[in-house]
């Protein structure tokens, strides 16, 4: 028996803002779709574009990377560097026609409500696109 398809989304959340924002959403009992799998990272600047590509390779239908608002980075400029990398990756994926699967957001530690809204919109966007074309051949060679 197979259940209807649900998008799987990997979320890289920075420890200082977005992860705390997600925590706030949780303790405030704000409802949002349960489709995200959170990976806590020290800073959005530490998210190598390869992490995002690997998530897609492993069968994620979408990826969300979230960090502190510009100017609020715990490491002062990590998110500014991240923004440049993400922009190039975003445009490159757009060029390949894979628009709408990889999302970036700035969510602060006090924005629990906003975190829920971001996740809701990301899940809705990925749901609209359907399963990832890279997730199809999942039977073989799954990495640990």
């Amino acid at each position, binding site marked *: 028996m197979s259940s209807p398809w649900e998008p799987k989304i990997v979320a890289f959340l920075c420890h200082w803002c977005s992860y705390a924002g997600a925590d706030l959403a949780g303790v405030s009992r704000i409802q949002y779709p349960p489709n995200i799998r959170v990976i806590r990272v020290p800073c959005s600047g530490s998210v190598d574009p390869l992490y995002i590509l690997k998530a897609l*390779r492993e069968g994620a239908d979408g990826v969300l990377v979230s960090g502190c608002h510009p100017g609020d980075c715990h490491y002062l400029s990590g998110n500014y560097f991240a923004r440049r990398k993400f922009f190039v990756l975003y445009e*490159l994926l757009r*060029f390949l026609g894979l628009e709408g699967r990889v*999302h970036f957001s700035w969510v602060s530690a006090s924005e629990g409500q906003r975190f829920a809204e971001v996740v809701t919109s990301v899940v809705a966007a990925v749901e609209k696109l359907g399963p990832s074309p890279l997730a199809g051949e999942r039977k073989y060679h799954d990495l640990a």
Partner: protein
Amino acid sequence: MTLREGARKLLEEKSVQGVLGYKRGSLPFRTRPYLFRNPQEVEELVFTPFCGTNLARYLLRLPGDFGKVAVVAKGCDSRALTVLVREHQLKRENLYILGVHCPGMVDWRKLAQWKDLKESEVAFEEGTILIRGVPHPLSSFLEASCKRCRYRSPLEYDILLGAEASPFPFEDHLAALWRLPKEKRWEFFAQELSRCIRCYACRNACPMCYCKECFAESHKPLFIHPSPTLRDNFVFHLGRAMHLAGRCVECGACERACPLGIPIATLFLAVAEIVREHFAFEAGASVEAPAPFVTYREDDPNAFIL
């Protein structure tokens, strides 16, 4: 002074240990990189529209104590040299750059439709290629990266030899792809990326891919499985494209090396274009400007972020 005279002079004066240039390959229309060590050999030095190979790649393979070497450089080669000097892979004082004006590099694969074509049956004139006496526009035989080349003459050189070659129309195959609907674009890339057998020839030919250990072959962390499936090929080529952001000199070496004829340079050219357009940076065009990923501006593009 011709290229040969320039190279011979350098070798006779012993001001360089060798001249890295091209000589005829063993198959028609093919050339191979060759390190000329003594002046008698220089007769074999050639520079034709079949010398696409980026020689900067080969400098990285010389022993560290080789000393000063002269290198024949087109526009893209000179850009590659500049990037490699910036990244401390080469020492500028150990280089003597013999700049040459690039006539545009011909894709020898496009000559395959003429059976048993000999080198003597092909000639070049202002913007045309004569095949068995029949003129054809040169631009339709050029490699994709050459068609959208913006620096045919070297930007950095010690001596610039030869005459400026005739211009040819700028043809942007990226813009044509961007105009397609996104489903069509993915269809195109999915098909092309599925064909890749991951021989890594593109990486090995790339003057910028000099990492001792490549992420593609790393086991810890393991990014991709060695099997050439679409999703692994996707990670390999996009990962490489990200590593080449702000470093790709648009020479087309990857595409030339591909045994399957996948237009793989398209990805790297697209990244170069994104960096040029939004971060106003061109790899190898300036020695001083900071590389795009080691700097930032507070007003960088932000509209794509939720």
